[in-house]
């Protein structure tokens, strides 16, 4: 009976943890897109008023922050400073919550930075900003709908398994 009780408890806890991991996955996706949009907004203001180089904007944006997107951006900037080619730095982004295609889009965006004169650069940022804000809204909806649903399902599954075992 004690063994069954422990096993049931473990199933319930394990299943809940899986649910929480699923929810965290969707939250991280949302965080990445939200931060990406915030980064684009900062780029737009820094480029239009001060023409701050991309590296400087990244430093300012990442200062004191430790999210997934910030970590990836910091590494990208460090690689650039070491003299690695821009496309290579962008391809090596560590954004695990995103699918390969989504990661490629962000790599493409980073690769496009700093290659155009001010006016054209700002226009391009406007386009990317619009594109990523759509993805941000989509990921926000996914986070609410799927993240919550997976958590509830996993908790329920854990309770069901616990009942069966008991």
């Amino acid at each position, binding site marked *: 009976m004690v063994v069954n009780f422990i096993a049931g408890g473990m199933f319930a806890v394990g299943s809940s943890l899986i649910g929480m991991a699923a929810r965290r996955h969707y939250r991280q996706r949302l965080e990445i897109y939200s931060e990406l949009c915030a980064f684009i907004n900062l780029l737009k203001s820094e480029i239009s008023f001060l023409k701050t180089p991309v*590296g*400087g904007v990244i430093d300012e944006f990442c200062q004191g922050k430790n999210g997934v997107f910030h970590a990836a951006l910091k590494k990208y900037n460090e690689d650039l400073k070491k003299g690695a080619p821009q496309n290579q730095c962008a391809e090596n982004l560590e954004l695990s919550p995103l699918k390969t295609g989504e990661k490629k889009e962000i790599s493409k965006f980073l690769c496009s930075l*700093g290659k*155009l004169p001010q006016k054209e*650069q700002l226009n391009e940022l406007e386009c990317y900003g619009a594109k990523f804000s759509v993805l941000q809204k989509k990921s926000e909806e996914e986070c609410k709908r799927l993240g919550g649903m997976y958590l509830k399902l996993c908790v329920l599954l854990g309770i069901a398994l616990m009942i069966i075992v008991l």
Partner: protein
Amino acid sequence: MFSMFGALLKKGLYALIAREYDPKTVTEIRLRTGRPVVVQTIYKRGIVHLASGLPYKAEQDDIAHALAVASNHSIYAVNDDLVRGFLHFSGGIRLGACGEGVSERGDMLALKSISSLMLRLPHEVKGCADAVFSRLLAADAKTALIISPPGCGKTTMLRELARLFSYRLNTLIIDERLELAACVGGAATLDTGECDVISGVDKTVAYENTIRAMSPELIVTDELFREREVAAVLDIIRSGVGVLASVHAKNLDALKKSAVFAPLVDTFECFVTLGNNPVGKILDIEFRKTG
């Protein structure tokens, strides 16, 4: 200093250049898409070879890499310089660029499809101006014009003269193209002694601002080019401030024949002509005959 080129060049190309040429003597590297890379040293001019012996031909990627590094991966931040045909990089390295201009109503907005780059490395040669300096002191002259075609060491000579004079006079360097003092974050990275330096500012604007604000006894500036720059320099000399400047010309006679530059010949006290065999060789020091 040569190692700074390393950041601008892709690793393989840098290694090939360092294998064939003495890094300390390299003054220029020219990259042209699809053409062999040309290296100019103090003593000779040559091309870069692959290990197989074939010439290394520059690719668009070599040029894009140099531009990206020099602009800090931010072309928009240096577009104004690029429109004027050059970029500057740490340590006074200057990148001259050629490509396709984008214009609107006669104004050049951008330079695209850049296909040629010239990387020029500044050199500090302590003692290269000793002879000129002692002649200027002996003649109590405070105005001198360094004359030579491009690539003969005018900037190096001016920098050294500025350094030597800075211990005697309040000396101001107007470094429009960031080659004389190679300032990074406002501080000179090359030895300019006790000089004050204003960099990245149009000469004529800098003259006006600094003469009032800094009260210099001597102004040092590079590459007089336009009529209004000549007029500004003449005005400064008239106001009693010394000027050490440089100008592109084969020799003093060529300068006398130029309508734009001829007034300089009647105003400066000393004319130093440089040659390029070897780079920086003083061909002539001539003082203006007065009375």
